[in-house]
């Protein structure tokens, strides 16, 4: 059923506070979409990590650059886009933090958490430049995807 997704767009400034705020909005949208508490947490953390990277790497903490978060609620899954005004990055260039050499490094775990907590994860360069991560979480069988 090619249902038109329900869309919620959020535009945030590049501020530290935008990370927790986007996370909370993500949790609200996930709850409204019928995800259970555990999935709400996972979706919230994925949004947190995506927006944190947009803040740090993409927009390099330049406040006037925008962070766009788009939630699309399809009948079978929720899709989240986090786009920044940086130069983007390629997934192949992100080292796996679980290897022996990287294990004790301070960083590199954000992408891993997003990939693990969401069912789909991809990185793109948006039109006109800017990095974008696109991730999706499917409704579990017992969930009521009609809730919202």
């Amino acid at each position, binding site marked *: 059923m090619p249902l038109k997704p329900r869309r919620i767009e959020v535009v945030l400034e590049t501020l530290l506070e935008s*990370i927790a705020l986007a996370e909370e909005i993500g949790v609200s949208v996930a709850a409204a979409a019928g995800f259970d508490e555990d999935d709400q947490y996972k979706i919230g953390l994925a949004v947190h990590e995506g927006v944190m990277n947009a803040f740090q790497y993409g927009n390099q903490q330049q406040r006037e650059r925008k962070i766009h978060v788009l939630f699309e609620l399809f009948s079978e899954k929720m899709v989240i886009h986090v786009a920044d005004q940086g130069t983007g990055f390629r997934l192949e260039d992100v080292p796996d933090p679980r290897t022996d050499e990287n294990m004790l490094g301070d960083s590199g775990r954000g992408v891993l*958490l997003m990939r693990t907590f969401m069912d789909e994860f991809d990185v793109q360069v948006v039109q006109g430049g800017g990095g974008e991560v696109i991730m999706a979480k499917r409704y579990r069988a017992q969930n009521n995807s009609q809730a919202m």
Partner: protein
Amino acid sequence: MSLKATSREIGGVTVIDLDGRITLGDGGALLRDLIREKVNSGHKMLLLNLAGVNYIDSTGLGELVSGYRLVKAQNGELKLLNLTKRISELLQITKLYPVFEIHNDEVKAVASFSQ
């Protein structure tokens, strides 16, 4: 929302009780400063009580790892106590679970430090 930290000394071991979120910003920075301060003042046997921590982001995980490295480099030990289900899951996903010594019983955890 943010992190509260208090520390106690038990038989040569510094127990740091953490309550809140360890994330980029306040929480992560607080933990980093506290560990550094303890190590600099000669307290190298650290037990982080995470019972009150239900949320850590990738930056917070990074702080745990760098705390661990710092303490180890000073011939100390940093161990974890009372992981919540979510934190345990995060350590497993990132393969950090085997890196840390993890306890559920404070008395046994304190006794486990080599002194």
